[in-house]
């Protein structure tokens, strides 16, 4: 009997995504664009936070956004009301954005905004704390958001995404009292998964805590602009 042939493959399953993400990263670096990817559960308040962030940063910086949703253009429409270009990616079935989506969107959005001329590219990911963790999009910053209404153990329930994110925003602080939000317990949860992670507690609606967040983002964008020759 002839022996079956063994063929070595040794390929990372997500290699294609990671390779493309690195290409995107190099492109963004060459153009001096700071790229931030926002992940959260559905309903945490990403879009509202981004609207308020854009309103405060757009005086100083040139901004563009890419928004991912399974269906509808609703978030892009809302973001456009700030006056900056927003391009909607509809995945139709996929629960997360991949670098291929970003690459394709930048090509399609080319007539609409020139990404290489931007100071800041915001990527609003699909509302999902599980699958979004595995897909590098070529970003400089991954922001995980959780709101006061979701429970202080959220980071413990989704350790992977919290571990892989760079900063955490706790949103809807204006509702903290009404839902009996335990700030200390939330901080402990975050610390258990990613000790020392920068945390911004804010309310996009009332403006509470927004200054610290805007200052931090401004510094990051300036730093990347400074590297651009």
């Amino acid at each position, binding site marked *: 009997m002839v022996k079956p042939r063994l*063929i070595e493959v040794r*390929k990372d*399953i997500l290699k294609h995504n990671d390779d493309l993400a690195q290409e995107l990263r190099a492109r963004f670096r060459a153009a001096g664009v700071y790229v931030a990817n926002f992940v959260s559960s559905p309903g945490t308040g990403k879009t509202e936070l981004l609207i308020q962030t854009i309103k405060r940063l757009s005086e100083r910086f040139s901004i563009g956004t890419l928004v991912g949703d399974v269906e509808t253009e609703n978030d892009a429409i809302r973001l456009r009301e700030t006056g900056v270009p927003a391009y909607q990616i509809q995945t139709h079935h996929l629960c997360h954005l991949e670098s291929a989506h970003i690459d394709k969107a930048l090509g399609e959005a080319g007539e609409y905004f020139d990404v290489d001329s931007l100071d800041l590219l915001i990527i609003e990911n699909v509302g999902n704390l599980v699958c979004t963790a595995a897909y590098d999009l070529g970003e400089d910053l991954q922001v995980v958001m959780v709101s006061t209404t979701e429970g202080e153990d959220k980071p413990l329930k989704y350790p992977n995404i919290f571990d892989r994110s760079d900063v955490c925003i706790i949103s809807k602080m204006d509702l903290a009292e009404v839902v009996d939000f335990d700030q200390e317990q939330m901080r402990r949860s975050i610390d258990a998964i990613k000790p020392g992670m920068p945390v911004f507690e804010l309310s996009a609606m009332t403006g509470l805590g927004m200054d610290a967040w805007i200052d931090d983002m401004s510094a990051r964008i300036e730093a990347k602009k400074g590297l651009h020759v």
Partner: protein
Amino acid sequence: MHELSIAMRVVETLTEDLAGESGSVTVVRLRVGALSGVVPDALRFAWDVACRETRMEGSSLDIDEVAARIWCDSCEREQTVPGAFRMLCPICGEPGSRVVAGRELEILSVEMATDGQA
């Protein structure tokens, strides 16, 4: 996670890579780490569906499961940690300073039979 999507990606990659090889695929070997976000049983379940009407149809999936390992600064050695939850050293309880293993999600190899023999 979305194991069917992952399984389909494996099938796509192999269909491309094995285009120059003759014969049928009998075994596909993957390495899945505890921190990869992929559940081996769910992947096995999705495999047959993903293979339907492709060159991989009829092949079996062999998964090498890799446990999470961290480097502990206090103990100055690698430690295996159970599960995929908190990366704490099982000996001294300190958080590991880095993940050494467990994030793998790889296609290792395939076994192929010459047509007419599988």
